């Protein structure tokens, strides 16, 4: 299910609209992940505060969206574009890749909330495919 030119154009177009709110989107999505899928909290036991509006969540949400921005930039070759991030996730963070799907879903929900008109079914399918591609690239170095 690789990204067609149409998908890439749709992702870039939507990113153009949403990128100004990237930090808020990231914080909202991550906060949501921790509430909707509480098992994901295990990766953040070192944070003093795991509530949605905490500084740790806000900051990390920002980091995540920087990664997404990088992926949009490297959309033509996600595998090599996200190589360093894949190594980090594989050897240091060791996040079970099943969680990538959960966070992707939370980001999509946040987009639906914040951009109900722009997040059309066509934009949705392109973003869903994009996040699948990003997740695959992130899992590349795992084994």
């Amino acid at each position, binding site marked *: 299910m690789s990204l067609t030119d149409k998908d890439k154009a749709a992702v870039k177009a939507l990113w153009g609209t949403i990128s100004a709110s990237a930090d808020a989107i990231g914080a909202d999505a991550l*906060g*949501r992940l*921790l*509430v*909707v899928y509480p098992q994901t909290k295990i990766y953040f036991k070192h944070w003093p505060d795991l509530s*949605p509006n905490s500084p740790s969540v806000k900051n990390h949400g920002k980091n995540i969206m920087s990664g997404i921005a990088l992926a949009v930039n490297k959309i033509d070759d996600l595998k090599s574009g996200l190589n360093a991030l894949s190594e980090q996730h594989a050897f240091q963070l060791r996040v079970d890749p099943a969680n990538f799907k959960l966070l992707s*879903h939370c980001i*999509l*929900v946040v987009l*639906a*909330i914040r951009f*109900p008109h722009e*997040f*059309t*079914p*066509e934009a*949705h*399918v392109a973003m*869903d495919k994009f996040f699948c591609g990003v997740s695959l690239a992130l899992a590349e170095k795992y084994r």
Partner: protein
Amino acid sequence: MVEWTDFERSTIKDIFAKIDYDCVGPAAFSRCLIVYPWTQRYFGNFGNLYNAAAIIGNPNVAKHGITIMHGLERGVKNMDHLTETYAELSVLHSEKLHVDPDNFKLISDCLTIVVASRMGKAFTGEVQAALQKFLAVVVFSLGRQYH
């Protein structure tokens, strides 16, 4: 036996009381057919599903979206007996319609996204968790009679 908190019960009833089935049903179902096109396999007799515009404008799609919402409403009214409530529909989906139960999760995700877009900021993480828990139990009940 699923345990529901007071918050979960009131949230689910509240969501289904407030949403417009005629709007949300068609929007969620058409989104599912567009985002996960392999789900179209079950709707060969629905007419034109050629592209997103055709799907969104298709009256059979709209009608079936509304049917799905009424099906979910039965669950909302019987939250403590979901397995029994959906036993017959589970048999139907397995024996007659031959629907892969993994597909139930796909429509459920699309419905979550459509409800989120309608509710906006009111769709907090806690509300999302409640809706997803309800839909997960419905999905489980619908898959229960498969063999």
